[in-house]
């Protein structure tokens, strides 16, 4: 090795190709989204449940940005969901009934809240971070819950009016509009999130997750990235909240309860972190099973949900999606990790 080896063009090409391949859409992804859209045509499917699955999936994906990519566990993620939900609610209540622009506004405000949260917690890690996010979530919940005059408190906000989407599609009681509206918004935001995590910023997030000390020694703005990740995650969570308000035309403190923060964490971990899809898979499995179990065993479904969690962590250590990937990879005869140039 005493003579220095030189870079060959093939090697250089292979390296660029490697990153390109990471960013490329593969067939499973396309199938996944087609399958979601296809649910609409399944006879007697519960469209409302499906739209709520998209919303939870989007919400879980927003947490994935923080937890899966940046390694920040947040126990208070519902706070951002709730901010989005209430912004959309106030819009609908005070005459800004057009849903898409209201959704964008909700995202923007949630992003600001997220960014400020990130600023506040950027030096805190581990358990401290969990407790700070949890505490902030509980404080916000309490505020909204008891400020009956401003928010309607526990009874929920009343008088929310949402105009038809694009002036054409009214939110109907069958949940048809809700289905497509939630799916399309979730998809668009997914595409954006996907691009972000495949971008240099995404790589930096993973780097900081893996080894913040080393990132500092690369001169990376690790703390600034915390606020940016929070802003991004919060914006997406806010979008999910706004979607919920708009599709149900109702908002209550429930949207920012600790229970929701815990549920979204559970959904994400069931699905698998660090892949964006984990949230959607988790939401599908968790909500459908919960709905089904609650229907067949209303009193004891807690038991079965608990058992489900225990089974998932016992047999699919890292969540359902990674296990699925392993399975798919096993089918494919020759799949190397990268070019073997």
């Amino acid at each position: 090795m005493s003579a220095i080896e030189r870079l060959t063009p093939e090697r250089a090409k292979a390296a660029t190709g490697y990153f390109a391949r990471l960013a490329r859409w593969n067939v499973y992804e396309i199938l996944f989204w087609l399958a979601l859209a296809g649910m609409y045509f399944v006879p007697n499917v519960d469209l409302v449940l499906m739209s709520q699955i998209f919303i939870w999936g989007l919400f879980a994906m927003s947490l994935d940005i923080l937890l899966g990519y940046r390694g920040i566990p947040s126990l208070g993620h519902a706070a951002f969901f709730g901010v989005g939900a209430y912004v959309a609610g106030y819009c609908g209540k005070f005459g800004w009934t057009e849903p898409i622009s209201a959704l964008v506004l909700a995202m923007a405000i949630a992003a600001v809240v997220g960014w400020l949260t990130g600023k506040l917690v950027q030096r805190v890690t581990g358990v401290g971070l969990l407790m700070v996010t949890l505490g902030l979530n509980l404080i916000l919940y309490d505020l909204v819950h008891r400020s009956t005059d401003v928010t309607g408190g526990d009874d929920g906000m009343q008088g929310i009016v949402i105009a038809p989407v694009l002036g054409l599609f009214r939110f109907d009681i069958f949940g048809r509009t809700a289905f497509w509206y939630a799916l399309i918004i979730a998809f668009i935001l997914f595409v954006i999130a996907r691009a972000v995590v495949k971008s240099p910023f995404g790589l930096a997030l993973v780097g900081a997750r893996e080894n913040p000390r080393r990132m500092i020694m690369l001169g990376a703005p690790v703390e600034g990235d915390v606020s940016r990740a929070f802003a991004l995650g919060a914006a997406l969570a806010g979008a999910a909240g706004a979607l919920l308000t708009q599709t149900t035309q109702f908002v209550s403190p429930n949207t920012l309860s600790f229970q929701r923060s815990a549920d979204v964490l559970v959904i994400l971990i069931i699905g698998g972190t660090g892949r964006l899809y984990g949230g959607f898979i988790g939401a599908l499995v968790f909500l459908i099973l919960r709905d089904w179990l609650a229907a067949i065993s209303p009193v004891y479904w807690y038991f079965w949900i608990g058992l489900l969690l225990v089974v998932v962590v016992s047999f699919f250590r890292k969540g359902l999606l990674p296990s699925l990937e392993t399975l798919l990879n096993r089918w494919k005869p020759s799949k190397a990790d990268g070019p073997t140039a």
Partner: protein
Amino acid sequence: GFGASAQETVKIGILQSYSGITSLGGQQTDSTVKLFMQKYGDTAGGKKIELVRRDTTGPNPEVAKRLVQEVVTREKVQVLIGPDYTPNTLAAAPILMEAKVPSFVTGAATTGIVGEKSKYSTRTFFAVPQLCKPLAAYAVKNGWKRVFVAVADFAPGHDCEKYFIEALKDASGTLAGNLRIPVANPEFSGYMQRIRDAKADALFIFMPIGELSIGILRAVNDSGLKASGIKIMGTGDITDETYIDAVGDAALGTITTGIYSTQHDSALNKEFVKDYVALNGAKPRIGWGAIATWDAMRMTYDALNAQAGAKFDPDKFAAFIHGRTFESPRGPITIDKANGDIVQNIYIRRVDKVNGVLQNVEIESFKDVGFK
């Protein structure tokens, strides 16, 4: 079609909470429905009654609204008992209105949630002012003029606080002080000391059923506040039969207002209680949810019988019910014609031991109290 009318069915959706802290609500509803159908059969007006049960999981409008949509659009439910809780009721209202599904509010007490929101809905529970106002009058009449008001710090609590203080002033009582107590709160001693410092004649309490209602009565007792001579009173939630045994003797002597007590002295009630206990056992004890469900079932059967032989018509169904007066195990009730809200007797009760069991014994009644 005409020929099919014999086996035509009516689907009744039951949307109650079956899980978690609030699971007792669903359990009571089920027990009552079971009792009712055992007594009156599973057909009404020639139509077979089919039940569709769903778990709202508590005050959770997102889930409740989805379930309402689901049972209305997919299960094609024609009548709905529930959903429970105010936020659930409010979230569901537009759908029930649009789909023309008559519903019964059996577990939400906020004012004004029936009528304006949905002309198809009927309340068989009660409205907050209905409970608060008579108690204020009763307190002042008995010489407890300086009243300290402690409510749970959430919308129903604020509602209750408002109506009670209003009524107290109207009855020329005075407010010795007021407190809003957080809903997630395991510790009352700071509050107890504050109430004690205020030296009031009576303490009015509104707490949701559960660890708060149990906790505050125990705290009132353990801290020595009760022994200091202050009169303890509140809405019936705090001494609800389903939880009163968990409070124990600390509840003795508490004065509450209520719409129903198993001790109510009427033939109809005696029969109801006897049958209920025979079918479902003595525990859990009968609470207000049971009576609200019972009356909802009663009206459903009556309304269906009234349109026997015809196709189910939601408008006629609602029209039949609204404006009706009838005798319930709780006493006479009237459903307001314009609003679908309820007018009923309100009882002042005191917690006593009857045959070794804590009971809400009626000591005075206010007739035909309105819902405003």
